């Protein structure tokens, strides 16, 4: 066994015994072993040393080293992927979402058709508020790996709250159940909360929320921020209310009621249009056309509906990313395909 393989083995041992974080002693040991190999100019070991330090808790050094790797080897995807992993596993993923997205776009250019890159890019873009790009990446990840539950979850969440597709809710529940069967953490139940609340199943949504944060011990100050983030997101989900924007029963309330500017602008435009139709000569003399009013009415409604979905997605999907990504980072080690994409291990098959 080479020194590099020995270091990787130590790293994986430290990740295998994950308990709200890697085993710091093993991570430090792996970092030292990687350093020895990296001194001989092995770029895989340079990435490994930074990754081991990052999982040991020294994020600043990890990021600095990874930036050095990307500067020395700009055509090496592993450095970019590792940077994005630490950005998305940060306690404040929204603050690092854009840098993660840029790193992952660079990685995707260097290593196309890698499912975990597309999936992480979907997470990063959703956190940054680029929902259409996020949806495309999530779908690309699902195309590359049909069993990618995480990508399914992000795709369904984006369809539900950005696309206004109510049927996507059932997928979120399926993903949470599948994750349980695969012995993943309880974090995906947070996605199920969104689906259940949208359907108006409030009690079930609350139960799902409790299930998602159940592994986080009550009264533990270390995990309290994670619990509070999830609960804050849930509170905003309740403010958002059941159903989806653009649906009949919510529409009038969402635009501000019957005396809102939207409703009154529409009414005024309709009144003007009718006046024009009653007196076409005057309309022609004044240079106004009822067809223009029709067009403007259509544009007004379409833009308002689109804007409402955009606002909803900004609140709910970004809020979800803010709560979910740190929860996953706490409860789960990085998946093996990510370690593989970082060029630390080779997946067989």
């Amino acid at each position, binding site marked *: 066994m080479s020194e590099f393989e020995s270091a990787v083995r130590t790293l994986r041992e430290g990740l295998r015994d994950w308990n709200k974080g890697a085993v710091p002693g093993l991570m430090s040991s792996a970092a030292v072993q990687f350093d020895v190999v990296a001194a001989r100019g092995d770029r895989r070991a340079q990435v490994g040393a930074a990754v081991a330090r990052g999982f040991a808790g020294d994020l600043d050094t990890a990021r600095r080293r990874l930036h050095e790797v990307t500067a020395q080897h700009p055509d090496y995807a592993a450095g970019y992927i590792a940077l994005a992993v630490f950005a998305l596993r940060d306690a404040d993923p929204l603050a690092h979402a854009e840098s993660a997205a840029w790193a992952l776009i660079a990685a995707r250019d260097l290593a196309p058709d890698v499912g975990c890159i597309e999936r992480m890019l979907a997470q990063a873009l959703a956190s940054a508020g680029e929902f259409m790009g996020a949806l495309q990446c999530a779908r690309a990840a699902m195309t590359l790996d049909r069993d990618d539950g995480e990508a399914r979850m992000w795709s369904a969440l984006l369809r539900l709250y950005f696309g206004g597709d109510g049927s996507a809710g059932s997928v979120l529940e399926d993903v949470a159940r599948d994750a349980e069967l695969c012995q993943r953490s309880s974090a995906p139940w947070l996605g199920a909360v969104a689906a259940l609340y949208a359907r108006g199943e409030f009690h079930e949504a609350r139960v799902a929320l409790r299930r998602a944060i159940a592994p986080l011990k*009550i009264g533990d100050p270390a995990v309290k921020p994670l619990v509070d983030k999830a609960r804050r997101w849930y*509170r905003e989900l309740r*403010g958002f209310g059941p159903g989806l924007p653009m649906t009949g029963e919510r529409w009038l309330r969402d635009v501000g009621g019957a*005396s809102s*500017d939207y409703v009154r602008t529409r009414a*005024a*435009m309709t009144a003007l249009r009718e006046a024009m139709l009653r007196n076409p000569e005057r309309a022609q003399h004044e240079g106004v056309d009822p067809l223009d009013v029709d067009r403007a009415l259509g544009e007004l409604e379409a833009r308002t509906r689109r804007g409402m979905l955009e*606002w909803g997605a900004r609140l709910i999907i970004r809020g979800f990313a803010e709560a979910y990504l740190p929860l996953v980072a706490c409860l789960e080690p990085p998946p093996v395909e990510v370690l593989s994409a970082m060029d630390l291990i080779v997946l067989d098959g």
Partner: protein
Amino acid sequence: MNPPVATGVGDSLPSLLVVSPSGVPWLVPPLPWQGEVPAALRQGMSGVTGEVPVVEMLSTPCTFVEVVALRAGRYVPLFGWGPTVDEARRAAACLRRAFDPQADPRALEHTLDLVMHPKLQAKPLEALARAVLAGECPAWSLDLVAGMLGMLGASDRARESACAALDLAGTSRSVLRRLGAAGGGDLGAYREHYTALCMGESSLRDGPGSADLVVVRQWYDVVLARRWSGIDALRAASDGPVDASTRWLATTAAWLAGDERARGRLMDLAQSILDPVQPSLPRVMPLMAREMAELLANPWQLRWSHLQCAAARDHAAAAIRTWLTAASEVEPAEDERGALDPEPSQAGRSAVAARQLAGEFLLDWFVPDREARTRVDAWAARVLRTWHRLLGAERVARALPELTAEASP
């Protein structure tokens, strides 16, 4: 001291009030208006013989030499000799000549030049305000100057600085100052003027004239921020204790919103405001008639432009206001993890910031049709200018009888 001038307003000349030297510190030789005529101006005066005189009042029509004197700063600004009744009479005479049927087309502009002097700026007006405050000069002289500025069509900047100078007289005039400063069309600064009106409204609540201030702010809401809630408030407020000129302004918003009967009401209101000053200022009525005809031409086209601007607002932003309001409601401690503090999530915070921007005047929309926005903005600028003329006419109408009474034995 300056020689007395015949104004035609009073029958006899009242004696000059005693002015303390400290009140008029610029009256020491050389006087500010006795500067040399610049060489550049002299070059165009080849046909003119003699010295360029110091102008106190313009002829009707005004001469070339007088125009040169104005350009060269060789003129005595209003109240340049101090805050006296004589100076008030001179101001009234200047106004009368500007609106004389024989006056040249640029008479209003030339008369406006007389309000401030480039060397003294607003000092004479400040001295006037101080004299009024000390009881050395009658309060109607402030109305006269402020009214003159409006009637002559002063720019936003000139009106604002003059009204600020006149506001030294005390808080009872502050509303007049705020009203006088309402504008924004000259430099596209409606937002700043709206902010000033809001500040004035909150600081001068329930004071004299504050109802007018509220109406003007609501007019901005309807016409420039395209908020329909303002039109209901305007309808209610215009029936309250507001001046006729303010009612006229409120009616323009109703006209813009499609009220067909507003046109007649606008005409009637303007007529009632101008009737008292029409005998003294005969050219004011034709001038206003022309301006009103321009304002009220093509109502559908303007209404359509206004609706285009209203439609371009981000109406979806109303949704996030509703959601976040609902989310900020206090949640009882429902589970064993205890109560959650009211702090929103980071995503919620950024949405709150966006909401605040969305609620700000003129920022919650982007009008892709620039032509529509320009048309509404230009119309608003014309309405405000006409409203200032009417507001000025009301003030002058209040001041002129006082001036006549002061002049009577």
